[in-house]
């Protein structure tokens, strides 16, 4: 488009500026009812921890608020019984 025949875009239309591909996040516990969130299973809870041992936020994991609460509770329980770390201090 040359600047000469520039026409204002109708209001409300999205601008094609988003460059990165946006993938829709979904809650994996909502879509699969067989999956259970349990403090006894630290291996599956590790998916929701960062390398440092912090709990991942919902905006990254994409889980729904209900299941995020359950994950958080399970991780905290697993931490208190030493199945998961409170903190990972690398490079001693």
């Amino acid at each position, binding site marked *: 488009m040359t600047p000469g025949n520039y026409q204002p875009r109708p209001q409300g239309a999205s601008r094609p500026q988003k460059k990165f591909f946006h993938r829709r996040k979904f809650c994996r516990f909502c879509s699969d009812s067989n999956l259970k969130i349990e*403090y*006894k299973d*630290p291996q599956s809870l590790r998916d929701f921890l960062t390398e440092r041992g912090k709990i991942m936020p919902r905006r990254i994991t994409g889980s729904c608020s209900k299941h995020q609460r359950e994950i958080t509770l399970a991780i905290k*329980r697993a*931490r*208190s*019984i*030493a*199945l*998961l*770390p*409170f903190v990972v201090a690398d490079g001693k």
Partner: protein
Amino acid sequence: MRRYDVVFIALSNLPDSEISEIVERYQTMVTERKGLIIKIEKWGKRKLAYDIKKQNMGFYVLFDFAGDSHIVDEVERNLKIDDKILKFLTVKTAEEITAEEVEVIIEAAAKAKEPAEGAEKTAADMAVAAETPEASPETKEEEK
């Protein structure tokens, strides 16, 4: 009645006999007070995510039982006193559970176990059968 999970970590360097002794002691503690044991799981030795009492390994045991809160009081009091216990966690898994419901759960667990045991047996047989041919390449590899 309520349903509870109690997980405790015992010292990892205890002999098996002492571990089963501890388990038995807590088991009678629950049953004496009219608690119903649903299951006892020994998870075995595990690496701890962080050191507890200067230990980096621990022997995990899970008790799943139904009973009243005074049982938990007594069990936790004893766990606290016991030097062989590194740490414990109690979680209430159900607010209300009747004795009938407990029996149904135990029966269902037993039923689920039976075929599993059968499968284990066949698996064990297969392992035995597989061991003989498997053993030779393994030793060969080691030789190399």
